[in-house]
């Protein structure tokens, strides 16, 4: 399964001794029950809901099961711009997070290897934002980039943007917020891979006539690919379904709504449960297909 890619280790499966089969099952039970109750049941319920049709009584928010597959074609027709935008934002933000995180993780995991105190401090700084709710942090960015704020005043004064333009509500603001919020999820898996990277291989590469660029592309990058895959998946998947950053209450506007925004408004405001469910199932299906294709093409079969 593609989700095995989240684990960094390439540990192979061991066949446990059969004698302890009963104990293994007992230990697995809580997890299986949890998955059954809180994952498979809602998933099943969601799929059922996505096929419902409005009830005959005509009450708002009342639906009955009808195997109404048209819900899917309806959401695709209606929400195509949001679907495309979601994956566009997710792709750009993931690439941005990777470009920012890789040097950072390299610095912490390789350059600071012999400075444990500084290394711990840097890692703490990477994780530190989690101590504050991401809603608050996103709201903070909103006030920092508000039209009357010091940052925007400087931008206007320098002539980088016209006074009639706004940063908040733009594609860039949403992508900025998404990148910012998910950077730790990229940095940490990259760090765990780079921390174990044998720097003597860099010397071996240089000794074998590879210039620093070639050493990076032929040695460092391939060896740290598992971390890159873990990180991009951990970032891409939640971003594709994110509904906070793009919301008009945070960094977005009506022009930046994503799938998550639509699911939220259909569920909570329009009470259009079948459409919201169909959109959710669709999002899930597209992500599974994308991730499976990605992991396969990355050539890391041992991750699957």
């Amino acid at each position: 399964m593609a989700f095995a890619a989240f684990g960094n280790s390439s540990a192979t499966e061991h066949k446990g001794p059969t004698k302890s089969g009963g104990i293994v099952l007992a230990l697995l039970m809580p997890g299986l029950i949890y998955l059954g109750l809180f994952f498979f049941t809602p998933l099943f319920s969601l799929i059922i809901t996505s096929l419902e049709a409005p009830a005959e009584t005509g009450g708002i928010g009342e639906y009955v099961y009808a195997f109404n597959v048209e819900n899917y074609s309806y959401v695709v027709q209606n929400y195509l711009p949001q679907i495309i935008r979601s994956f566009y934002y997710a792709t750009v933000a993931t690439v941005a997070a990777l470009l920012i995180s890789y040097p950072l993780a390299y610095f912490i995991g390789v350059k600071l290897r012999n400075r444990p105190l500084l290394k711990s401090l840097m890692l703490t700084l990477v994780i530190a934002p989690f101590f504050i709710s991401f809603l608050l942090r996103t709201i903070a960015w909103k006030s920092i980039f508000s039209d009357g704020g010091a940052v925007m005043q400087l931008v206007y004064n320098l002539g980088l943007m016209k006074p009639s333009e706004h940063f908040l509500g733009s594609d860039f603001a949403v992508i900025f917020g998404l990148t910012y919020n998910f950077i730790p999820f990229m940095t940490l898996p990259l760090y765990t891979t780079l921390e174990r990277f044998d720097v003597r291989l860099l010397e071996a590469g240089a000794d074998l006539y590879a210039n620093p660029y070639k050493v990076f592309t032929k040695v460092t990058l391939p060896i740290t690919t598992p971390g890159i895959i873990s990180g991009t998946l951990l970032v891409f998947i939640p971003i594709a379904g994110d509904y906070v950053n793009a919301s008009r209450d945070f960094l977005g506007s009506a022009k930046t709504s994503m799938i998550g925004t639509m699911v939220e408004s259909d569920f909570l405001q329009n009470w259009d449960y079948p459409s919201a469910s169909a959109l959710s199932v669709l999002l899930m299906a597209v992500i599974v297909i994308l991730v499976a294709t990605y992991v396969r093409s990355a050539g890391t079969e041992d991750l699957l």
Partner: protein
Amino acid sequence: MAIDFKPSGADLELIDVRKEFPGFVALEDMDLHIPAGEFFALLGPSGCGKTTTLRIVAGLEEQTTGQVLIGGKDVSGTKPHQRPVNTVFQSYALFPHMTILENVAFGLRQRKVEDPLKKAMDALNLVELGYAAQRRPQQLSGGQQQRVALARALVNRPALLLLDEPLGALDLKLRRQMQIELKAIQMEVGLTFLHVTHDQEEAMDMADTVAVMNKGRIEQMGAPESLYDRPKTAFVAKFLGQSNLFVGNVVDSNAASVSIEVGGHKITAPKNRAEKHTGKICIGVRPEKATFHRSAPKLGADHVVVGPGEIIDIRFTGVSNQYLIDIPNIGEVTVFAQNVGISPVVELGEKVWVSWKVEHSFGLADLPAGNEEE
């Protein structure tokens, strides 16, 4: 990239190379010349600067001052990938994400040599690992990985091959076998080898020339036989094999020999085998050159006789017995005797005299630690 690859190795020259690390000096103004095609060993204890020397030659470390010349060309200040040298690392440093064949082909691909896979395969066959070409490094044993590392370096036909204790991680039997193979390969390809090791047997067995290093400088350099036969400093005498060292003031010096007095005994060395002829000097002899006698031997002036002393330890090592003899006023003397008889010829506690031929004595230029001149 214009790397000049000599078909049969190039010479290496270090001129006044000095390396300082924060807090200590790793190399003190080292001068060294290794002729093309030679198997040269840098021998010394850990921390003596031998690995630093190798890393400076490879370009992995930059010298503080001085010049490095390979094939007469100054390579100081150039990057490792610009130097016509290859290293066999102590840790092997094979690329885990590549097959054995791709590992060996790496250097060839970087230099855009034609037909890299075929040449890599030839190199693998040279180290008898052609059958493992498609495996990954993790699937090989330590000895096999070591051979891959050697093939990966050799395939580039470097002007200079650097070996950083490449046999250190192998067990004794495999190490001896690899030593023979390595020497055979060096003779076959005719490259210049610079071998860094702390194993004196390995250095003496393989190298044409051995340089013994201590505390950032070369103590003595020469063919293994001459180094062993005539160590010039106490460090070399003790690091390269074992030695019995005697310190005393010169009491007799003539055209042929120099004698010191130690604990009432006269110990003589040939003048041409002694570095110093006056004052307080140190004379030594190898344990296997000495023999012991049950009664005071009647020997001429061409022998040194000390004793009597008491045998305080006998160690059986297979081919020989090592006897430790405590002689009053002189100290402990070690004697090796071949196990040609059936059992030890003497017992613990027996009283014996020790003798050796004057021509086997050697006089050192310095004194062992703890005997510094007043």
